[in-house]
């Protein structure tokens, strides 16, 4: 899916956002650890990481709800640390949407405009415009509780965007939505973010969400950014085992470097197979390593080939258009192999005896983590 970027209206100036060595502690507990991140003007960056890794804390620091222990937040070349939240011109959409329950949809959307002292006419016109933007015309007089989850989220977006913020922050905005609705809303948010030329940070623990709408992803763990890169980079070239395991599914094989030269390594796996792997990381012969490989970069065969591993096929699950094979090596290491399923193909197709790297496969090497 590729989204066509509509032309950004000329009156909207996208602005960059820089987090400069931000740290934050709650009492003794360090929640954010020296995070530096440059979000380019008009870019959508996803903060992706497991629950508790400090994503929301970082977002709340940008919004000004909490003051970081150290570091600076810079919006468009201006340090905003001294500004209270109401002066930062940062729009935020919460997981719970946080619509004012005692106000109508129109009153919710007008809230920020009234706080800025806009005239009644401006408010009325902007509310109408925003309702049209999020395709919620005709809901102006409803109360939030009379709306579905998706509709509430549209209103929350309209309310945040009505004041024309410079930065848009989204904290797990899809978590409370049905799976089907999620994709619709992801497309919708991406569309609005482009249309308004917004610099945006999306917080999520859902990798698919991050993959589908982010320009770049910052993978976080324990208060730090582990890796920053495009979705494809993050998926194809994870820099740490954590990122490798957190993004997509992946198989791990223990091995030892047999020979090394110019970033190309021969790795002897525990099963005896020898893999040729390229890596930018330095390894020396004899180093114990972990080689990881995505399930879709492995193929099952019924004969031994170069670098293949003898296996037994335990189980095959048809998951939509894919077949996921659960296989085991002689020594009992379990791993997964994914293959496209042709229409009509049964779930258990073959008597596979070996597993080999697909022609395009790119295994990744990591140093063996300390046990």
């Amino acid at each position, binding site marked *: 899916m590729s989204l066509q970027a509509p032309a950004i209206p000329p009156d909207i100036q996208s602005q960059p956002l820089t987090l400069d060595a931000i740290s934050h502690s709650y009492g003794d507990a360090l929640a954010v650890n020296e995070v530096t991140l440059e979000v380019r003007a008009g870019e959508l960056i996803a903060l992706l990481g497991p629950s508790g890794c400090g994503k929301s804390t970082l977002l709340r620091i940008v*919004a000004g709800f909490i003051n970081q222990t150290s570091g600076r937040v810079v919006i468009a070349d201006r340090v905003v640390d001294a500004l209270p939240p*109401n002066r930062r011109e*940062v*729009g935020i959409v919460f997981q*719970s949407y*946080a619509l004012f329950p005692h106000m109508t949809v129109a009153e919710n959307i007008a*809230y*920020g405009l009234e*706080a800025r002292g806009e005239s009644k006419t401006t408010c009325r016109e902007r509310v109408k415009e925003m309702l049209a933007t999020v395709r919620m015309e005709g809901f102006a007089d409803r109360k939030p509780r009379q709306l579905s989850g998706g509709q509430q989220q549209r209103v929350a977006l309209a309310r945040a965007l009505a004041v024309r913020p410079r930065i848009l922050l989204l904290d797990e905005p899809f978590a409370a939505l049905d799976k089907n609705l999620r994709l619709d809303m992801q497309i919708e948010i991406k569309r609005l973010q482009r249309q308004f030329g917004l610099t945006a940070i999306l917080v999520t623990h859902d990798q698919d969400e991050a993959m589908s709408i982010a320009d770049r992803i910052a993978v976080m763990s324990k208060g730090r950014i582990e890796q920053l890169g495009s979705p494809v980079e993050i998926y194809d070239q994870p820099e740490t085992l954590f990122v490798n395991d957190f993004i997509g599914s992946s198989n791990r094989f223990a091995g030892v470097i047999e020979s090394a030269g110019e970033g190309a390594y021969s790795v002897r796996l525990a099963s005896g197979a020898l893999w040729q792997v390229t890596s930018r990381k330095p390894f020396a012969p004899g180093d114990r390593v972990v080689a990881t490989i995505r399930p879709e970069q492995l193929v099952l065969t019924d004969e031994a080939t170069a670098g293949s591993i003898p296996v037994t096929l335990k189980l095959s699950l048809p998951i939509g258009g894919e077949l996921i094979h659960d296989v085991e090596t002689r020594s009992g290491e379990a791993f997964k192999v994914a293959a496209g399923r042709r229409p009509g193909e049964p779930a258990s197709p073959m008597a596979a005896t070996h597993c080999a790297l697909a022609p395009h496969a790119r295994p990744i090497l990591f140093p063996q983590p300390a046990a």
Partner: protein
Amino acid sequence: MSGAATGETAGVEWRLAAPLGLTYLAFFAAPLLILLVMSFSVDDNLGGFSLAAWAKFWGDPFYRGVVWDTLRLGLVTVAMTTLFAYPIALLFIASGPGLQRLLLFIVLLPLLTSVVIRTFAWIAILSREGVLNQALLALGLTTAPLNLLQTELGLVIALMQIEMPLMLLPLITVMRQIDPSLSDASRALGGSKWRTFRKVILPLSLPGWIAGATLVFASATTAFISQTVIGGARLVYLPTLIWQQAMVVYNWPFAAVASVTLLVAVLAGVSLFAMLGRFARTA
């Protein structure tokens, strides 16, 4: 809730309610009826029929003044507790669990001491030689001791402390349920702290305030001990009047008129707050 009680369970529920129902009938409804009859009687034997007591009560500007003073005492106490309860409630929801426990303890403290002790403690504080006057004199904020005892101001100050838990507990309960991200949303949208309070916190906390105001009003207007001990002989409110008429003057029909009047006055105040509640919900 509705629809949970179906045909067969309804009968059981009635019988379960019977003991309390009968108790109410015997010790609440019946005395009330007697009181009403008494107010139209000639003497304390419930004999005869006369409108004399009613005519005397409502014909005399002094007694009408007592009714008005009592209602005003209730309203002023509600207003003053409101003024102090909101900052405390805001502090409460903004603080961590440790401070919350401490605040809750301080708030509940008045409920844990006897009314009589609390009231006499206030005498020690408010009297001419009391703690408050000594402090004011020492600070040079006043040259002569203030007269606080036997004034409405002194009484309201004392009542405010005594009734504060009744306002704070429902208010805190409701305010804790307000999603904290609503305030954050308001702030991020450009709302000042004051605007956030006025437009978001205040309207959403109204159900708690109405419950609290109802309790404080009913309690302040009928606070016999505080009214007599702190108000003294100079300030007369309906409860004091009833006691004087019944126990000193022995004019029971007249005391009955005052009692019925107090009952209706309190009910009127309470239903006023309930009406505000219904209005706030639909608004």
